[in-house]
């Protein structure tokens, strides 16, 4: 508004400058009017000024000379000079002129219909993306609902409790009481530190820790099992060796004790002395017991009894030996072995390795001999040279270990034979763990290292020991007497050895021989028995063949066909006869019928059980009397229905009683009866299938879980390929084209 006003002022001042006569006055007046009118707020269009004198004036300030004349559109387009530049435009213009007016807009109904159709097409396309999933689910072998397995989350108590408020008077009263006593109502179950620590431990760590714990537990159970097993071992030798090793250990400990705490060592020594005294008091190893007396009687004739008695005496001697107490710490070295069962051969009687009752073994004998010798030395002679002694002890230890390992391996072998490969593996690991027994490392902490070494070091050792074992066996079981001697001495070992492959050899050969002999004899029997039977059979067959041949010969000439042929009737007949010249149809039919008759005859039933009441076995046949007795002859079948119908075969196979249970017509999904029969023939039950197969065969089609809400399928369940609009929907649709007039087909066109 303000600008307008200023503009008007300027215009007025400018007009005053060029003041010229009346025209000017008029103009000024006009302007004034304009200015005034523009004050009203609405801007008015300035009226055009007419400067030329003319009759007809257009409102757009254009004088038009030829107003009376008619203007033609084409003239306008015509160039001043005739040129064809706008020719095309002209043509088009003319074409436009010829065209009819624009059509009326569609009626409301029609428009809506078009919209609906378009919407339907797009929507059904959208929905079509589910096709693949739907088909997949329909064909699925098994569906488990709910499709998304939710993991139930437990809402923490604080959250639940925080939303709840006391409303009723009773509740308020209770809460008032609680507040008064300042009871914690919503205690956080975990302190922040605890939660932090929980978060700090990652899943991996937790897993690792769990694995470690599991390992430890497994090891513990292994050791327990091992201890139990060892406790059950009956072999005396084993225990002997074990005790020996224990004794060594005790000795070592004692020495250590002596170094560290001489007082305690002395006390222990006294205890040992006590034991020696007890031994002296008792009559235990003096060959005066009942058993010893009985042995004494036998000893005259039996080397072993004598040996046993000698052992007893040796033991007694050893136990009663006074420990030389030069240095109090060394004496007990031998005494801790005092345990009565220790058979340490003394120089006189026990030095003979043959008397030890051990398996004679060239490889081990020297060692075994050395062992006791060392013992003596260690028991009786100097202990000052500690270095030497240690070395010796180590040697001994190794021997003992070797022995122990022997036992272990024997046991392993036994178990391998009995148990599964898994158990075997477990035992191996046990053995591996046991072997470094000299260093009593705690199983749990040492376990990792041991396992790591197992692969590299232990296996060669085992291999060596195996070799040793094998050599032993070779020696031992050279003669039958050896085996028997073994049997009398070490039953357990003997059992073990017998099953080992090399020991079996002689026995096996012997058995083979026996078997061969038997076979020979049987074969002889067979040869003796079989030929007549075969001959008989042959005779039978030939008889039948002859019979059948005869029948054919008799029946052939009676054919009516043949007669007709001879007659030489009409052409057609001739043609037929020519066509069937080669084969005798009627004879074939008769043969067929005879066969059917034979088959329908009830067969005799043999209930003979070979071996009952007489000798049985391969090559033996039950006696004729027995076969006659137990051969059940069925009653003769009722006469056939086609008995008097020479040209008909009536099958009597159909069992009326069974038909009630049989399917009369092929059920729907099957296309051939073979398919259906196959489906029936395959059994489902666990009687005929392994457990795994049974579970697979009987898996239900749909699995739902009680108490689980099954949500409708959602877009997340769509495979990613199907979600790509349009492209995903196509393959599914093409897979199952249903009808020719589908919306999609139309779309594709």
């Amino acid at each position, binding site marked *: 508004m303000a600008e307008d006003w200023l503009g008007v002022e300027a215009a007025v001042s400018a007009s005053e400058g060029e003041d010229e006569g009346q025209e000017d006055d008029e103009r000024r007046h006009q302007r004034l009017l304009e200015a005034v009118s523009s004050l009203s707020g609405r801007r008015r269009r300035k009226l055009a000024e007419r400067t030329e004198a003319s009759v007809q004036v257009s409102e757009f300030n254009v004088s038009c000379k030829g107003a009376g004349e008619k203007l033609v559109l084409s003239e306008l387009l015509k160039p001043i000079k005739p040129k064809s530049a706008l020719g095309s435009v002209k043509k088009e213009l003319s074409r436009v002129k010829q065209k009819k007016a624009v059509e009326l807009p569609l009626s409301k109904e029609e428009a809506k219909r078009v919209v609906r159709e378009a*919407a339907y097409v797009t929507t059904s396309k959208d929905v079509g993306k589910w096709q693949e999933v739907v088909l997949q689910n329909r064909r699925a072998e098994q569906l488990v609902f709910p499709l998304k397995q939710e993991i139930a989350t437990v809402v923490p108590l604080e959250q639940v409790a925080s939303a709840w408020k006391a409303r009723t008077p009773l509740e308020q009263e209770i809460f008032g009481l609680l507040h008064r006593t300042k009871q914690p109502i919503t205690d956080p179950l975990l302190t922040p530190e605890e939660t932090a620590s929980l978060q700090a431990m990652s899943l991996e760590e937790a897993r690792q820790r769990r694995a470690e714990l599991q390992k430890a537990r497994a090891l513990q159970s292994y050791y327990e099992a091992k201890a139990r097993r060892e406790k059950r071992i009956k072999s005396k030798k084993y225990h002997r060796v074990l005790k020996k090793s224990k004794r060594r250990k005790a000795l070592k400990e004692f020495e250590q004790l002596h170094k560290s705490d001489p007082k305690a060592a002395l006390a222990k020594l006294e205890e040992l002395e006590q034991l020696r005294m007890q031994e002296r008091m008792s009559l235990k190893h003096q060959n005066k017991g009942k058993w010893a007396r009985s042995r004494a009687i036998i000893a005259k004739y039996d080397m072993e009894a004598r040996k046993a008695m000698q052992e007893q005496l040796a033991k007694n001697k050893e136990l009663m030996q006074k420990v030389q107490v030069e240095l109090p710490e060394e004496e007990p070295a031998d005494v801790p072995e005092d345990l009565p069962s220790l058979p340490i051969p003394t120089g006189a009687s026990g030095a003979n390795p043959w008397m030890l009752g051990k398996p004679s073994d060239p490889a081990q004998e020297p060692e075994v001999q050395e062992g006791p010798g060392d013992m003596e030395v260690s028991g009786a002679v100097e202990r000052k040279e500690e270095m030497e002694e240690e070395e010796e002890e180590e040697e001994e230890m190794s021997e003992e270990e070797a022995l122990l390992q022997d036992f272990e391996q024997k046991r392993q072998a036994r178990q391998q034979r009995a148990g599964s490969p898994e158990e075997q593996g477990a035992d191996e690991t046990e053995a591996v763990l046991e072997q470094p027994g000299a260093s009593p490392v705690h199983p749990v902490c040492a376990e990792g290292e041991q396992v790591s070494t197992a692969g590299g070091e232990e296996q060669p050792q085992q291999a060596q020991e195996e070799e040793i074992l094998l050599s032993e066996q070779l020696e031992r079981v050279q003669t039958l007497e050896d085996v028997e001697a073994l049997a009398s001495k070490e039953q357990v070992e003997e059992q073990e050895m017998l099953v080992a492959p090399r020991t079996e050899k002689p026995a096996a050969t012997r058995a083979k021989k026996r078997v061969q002999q038997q076979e020979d004899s049987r074969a002889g029997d067979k040869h003796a028995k079989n030929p007549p039977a075969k001959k008989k059979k042959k005779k039978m067959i030939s008889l039948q063949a002859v019979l059948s041949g005869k029948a054919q010969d008799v029946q052939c000439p009676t054919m009516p066909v043949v007669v007709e042929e001879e007659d030489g009737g009409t052409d057609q007949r001739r043609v037929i006869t020519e066509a069937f010249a080669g084969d005798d149809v009627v004879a074939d039919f008769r043969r067929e019928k005879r066969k059917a008759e034979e088959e329908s005859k009830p067969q005799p039933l043999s209930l003979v059980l070979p071996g009952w009441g007489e000798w049985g076995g391969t090559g033996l046949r039950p006696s004729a009397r027995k076969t006659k007795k137990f051969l059940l002859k069925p009653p003769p079948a009722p006469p056939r229905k086609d008995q008097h119908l020479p040209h008909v075969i009536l099958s009597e196979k159909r069992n009326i009683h069974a038909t009630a249970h049989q399917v009369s017509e092929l059920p729907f999904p099957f296309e051939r009866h073979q398919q259906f029969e196959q489906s029936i023939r395959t059994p489902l039950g666990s009687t005929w299938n392994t457990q795994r197969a049974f579970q697979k065969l009987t898996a239900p089609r749909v699995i739902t879980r009680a108490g689980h809400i099954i949500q409708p*399928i*959602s877009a997340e369940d769509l495979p990613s390929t199907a979600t790509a609009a349009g492209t995903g929907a196509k393959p599914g649709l093409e897979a199952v084209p249903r009808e020719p007039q589908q919306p999609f087909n139309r779309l594709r066109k």
Partner: protein
Amino acid sequence: DVSVTLTAVPRNYDPALHPFEVPREYTRALNAAKLERVFAKPFLSSLDGHRDGVNCMAKHPKSLSTVLSGACDGEVKIWNLPKRQCIRTIQAHEGFVRGMCARFCGTSFFTVGDDKTVKQWKMESPEYGEEEEPIHTILGKTVYTGIDHHWKDAVFATCGQQVDIWDEQRTSPMCSLTWGFDSISSVKFNPIETYLLGSCASDRNIVLYDMRKSTPLKKVILNMRTNTLCWNPMEAYVFTAANEDYNLYTFDMRYLESPMRVHMDHVSAVLDVDYSPTGKEFVSASFDKSIRIFPVDKGHSREVYHTKRMQHVITVKWTADSKYILCGSDEMNIRLWKANASEKLGVLAPREKAAMNYNQKLKEKFQYHPKIRRIAQHRHLPKSIFCQIKEQRIMREARRRKELNRRKHSKPGSVPVVSERRKHIVAVVK
């Protein structure tokens, strides 16, 4: 180990040692079929407490143990199924409660009644001292006959003279969808493609709508009126319509020219239908005082439930864990049935489960054998239904014969053969 040797049973699967597998399995199948029938006791309990016929029911979307029901006297009851108790009663409307639905989150539910109102209620019972009042009440101009809630958004649809789509926050509908003028009896949202709606009106048609474009899509006109429809929860484009002509029709919404399948067995108008959440079966309630369970891909029912006291069944629901069926009937009771009549409830031992699966497979394997089929298919029916079935069989046979005769005695091609599926479709309107 001892434990292993105790449990492991060494077996020799040599077929020569286990002869007669087919006869033995046949006998087992026969026994299984017999036992199935012996143990078929589907009826669990009836929930009584309504003082008028039960007109509609709704499932709780988050709780299996809760079910809502509305009666013809305007009363709404909320039931606890494990206890078989009514836990809450609301006088919601004057006149019928026409329809009800729960919100997808399970915090509230909607009811529509003859008093032209839509009411939203809290699912939880009112606190101490609070009054039982709806959260919202919308007063409409016309009577609403049905309601359904969107499966994901805060949107619901009502039907009456037109299909209205409402935002929960507003008191006027977002949009109204019409196609012709007639009273629409039911409207249902598609549970998978949630923008799709299906409705059925009393001028015998089924109309599909798209909420995004706020336009109807297509209309199918059947021979007789469709009472309700239900979308398959696992197959986005499949829905089943319960028709007055005793049949149910399963449609593929992309090809409405003929239904995928016609399910016939009822002998009176089918009033309600609900899908099993697995999408493999559906249950239908009928005026003939029975409910039937149909496999989706079969033309006939696999099961029929009825009791002496059950009258016209108006509404039926399949619970969300697919184990039970609820039906509300004229005589004021809601009945709870097992979906699988002979199923053992409760925890099964592994061996029991294995035996059950085995028996099931045996029954499937030998289902075509006459004796087994006879046992497995045998159902007891009340005399009224039985006689009606017989009567209708005769009628159908007569009709068929007449058509055959007509075809025989007229110019070839003038009486075309119309398949059963196409017979019931009058037209498809674009």
